[in-house]
């Protein structure tokens, strides 16, 4: 017993040959799907890559950290709608007060600034992470050359820096950076150490291997202002996090209003970042998906033309025994094959693009994106192929055979 109609080998052979007959037309028709699938997969891959990147960052930092930020109303997974951004800046007294938090292991002020750092003729941009010497332990900074700055240097605000591995490489190449002088915003700093590279990085949105660590009081000399951007608390263990967080909130509430600060665990912060990334990914992917609709319209257009061109063939097939459903399935199959082929090509191009992007920016194709591209392109083929296929199936055999 042979499978007939839609699934017969001859049918599929004929359909593939029909599409191959007009190669240029088939490729141009599938182009919309190719571009649509490509852009959707690339954007999802970038979103996935960023999420994985952020996840790894938080893992390397450890999960016992609590962030005190001068940002209002961070709750649960994001910013409270309508809440204004606070302009609070913390003070040294806040750091002293927070050291009284019950069970807290460490309290570190953090001062950040984007700077241009230069050595001789080379200039690079970097982000300063200014804090106390304790930041080495909290951020798990390993030293590849020299040393980290010490407590005396931290207390005095000495102009010493520990360069991230990548920034040291860019400024100094093969030569040692230790004991050399670098210029940051026209001020001279001495390099005391170089941090080991962490690979993909473990920083707050930027590559940590390009960070520069220095005493926070030295950053004040650059800023000419004594401000603290955020405060980092470390709980002794996972079980104490909630208690330390609550204690810190009580202490700060004595001085600040509720909407002037937020105290969040690293898992919460991770959730916020992932949520924001997720929203961006979905929004951009949605925009990219519009090109899939355009691609589908293109397929529908070409299939209508194909039905017109093959009217007599349809009449002949009906005369020799094709039912309406046979004709419908033939044309629908052509539409689906076009769309799925576009989906496969789009996916392969997206895979290649992601591999290239990943060299510069986190991006990762997931296994389910294969199924996404195949299923979405099949769906587009079916949705936009059904109308022309139906019009073909409804043709009268007599009129179709007479068609000029």
């Amino acid at each position, binding site marked *: 017993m*042979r499978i007939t*109609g839609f699934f017969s080998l*001859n049918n599929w052979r004929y359909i593939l040959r029909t599409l191959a007959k007009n190669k240029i037309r088939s490729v141009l028709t599938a182009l919309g799907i190719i571009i649509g699938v490509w852009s959707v997969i690339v954007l999802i891959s970038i979103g996935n890559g960023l999420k994985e990147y952020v996840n790894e960052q938080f893992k390397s930092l450890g999960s016992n950290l609590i962030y005190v930020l001068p940002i209002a109303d961070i709750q649960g997974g994001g910013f409270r709608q309508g809440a204004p951004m606070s302009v609070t800046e913390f003070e040294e007294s806040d750091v002293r007060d927070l050291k009284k938090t019950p069970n807290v292991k460490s309290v570190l002020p953090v001062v950040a600034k984007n700077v241009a750092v230069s050595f001789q003729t080379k200039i690079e941009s970097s982000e300063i992470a200014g804090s106390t010497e304790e930041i080495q332990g909290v951020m798990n900074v390993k030293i590849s050359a020299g040393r980290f700055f010490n407590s005396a240097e931290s207390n005095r605000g000495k102009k010493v820096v520990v360069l991230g591995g990548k920034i040291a490489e860019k400024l100094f190449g093969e030569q040692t950076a230790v004991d050399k002088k670098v210029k940051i915003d026209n001020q001279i700093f001495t390099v005391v150490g170089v941090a080991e590279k962490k690979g993909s990085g473990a920083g707050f949105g930027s590559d940590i291997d390009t960070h520069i660590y220095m005493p926070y009081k030295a950053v004040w000399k650059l800023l000419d202002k004594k401000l603290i951007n955020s405060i980092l608390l470390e709980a002794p263990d996972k079980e104490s996090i909630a208690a330390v967080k609550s204690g810190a909130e009580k202490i700060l509430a004595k001085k600040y209003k509720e909407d002037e600060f937020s105290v969040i665990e690293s898992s919460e912060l991770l959730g916020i970042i992932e949520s924001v990334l997720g929203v961006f990914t979905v929004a951009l992917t949605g925009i990219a998906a519009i090109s899939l609709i355009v691609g589908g319209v293109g397929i529908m257009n070409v299939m209508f033309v194909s039905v017109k061109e093959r009217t007599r063939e349809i009449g002949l097939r009906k005369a020799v025994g094709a*039912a309406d459903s046979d004709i419908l399935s033939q044309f629908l199959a052509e539409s689906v094959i076009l769309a799925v082929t576009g989906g496969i090509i789009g996916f392969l191009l997206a895979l290649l693009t992601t591999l290239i992007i990943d060299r510069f920016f986190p991006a990762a194709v997931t296994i389910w994106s294969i199924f996404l591209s195949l299923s979405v392109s099949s769906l587009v083929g079916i949705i936009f192929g059904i109308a022309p296929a139906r019009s073909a199936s409804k043709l009268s*055999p*007599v009129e179709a055979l007479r068609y000029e």
Partner: protein
Amino acid sequence: MIQLQNITKLYKMGETTVTALDDVSLTINDGEFVAIVGPSGSGKSTLLHILSTLDRPTSGKIFWDDKDLTKLSDKKLAAFRNKKIGFVFQQFHLLAKTTVLENILLPTMYNNESNDECEKRAKEIAEDLGLTDRLFHTPAQLSGGQQQRVAIARALINNPDVIIADEPTGNLDSKSGEQILTILKDLNKKKKITLVIVTHDLDIAKRAARTVVVKDGKIVKN
């Protein structure tokens, strides 16, 4: 046996109604060779289309071996045509850029036989019709006579009871036309396949066992 009983076919053309067939009745026996003739616009093609189930009558009944075809759905009629009727058209209606063998096999796409059996039968039919060395050619590589022979082979692939030919020699020169007619007559005579030909050519009509003359939608001579 094919029986048409009181067949009327009306076409609505805007405000006007055209009567293509007016209360026509006709019986065709198994193994007969019938020619349907008539001037242009007489309704002979409409009669053929209804006889071959390509079109439905506005009123009346069609019986094939006592089976009322007017009650069948479009899908069942398609399956019926696939098994019982072979078509030969004036314009051949072969699929371009498809080989002769594939053209012959076209009706088998809609039945349940195995590929190997169908291909074997196709080659046998092609051999009988002198097409063996053309099996992998496309229609563009064939003469008109050869193309019509491919169409005949296609019509025979499912062992039909009836061959319906609509002006089968209309697009051929006289020599090729004669060859085609001989082939069709042989099929009728040797294989006892009922043959119904529509033609405006009275010379061809004379070769048939019976001539049905259609004029103004009515059978005026049978």
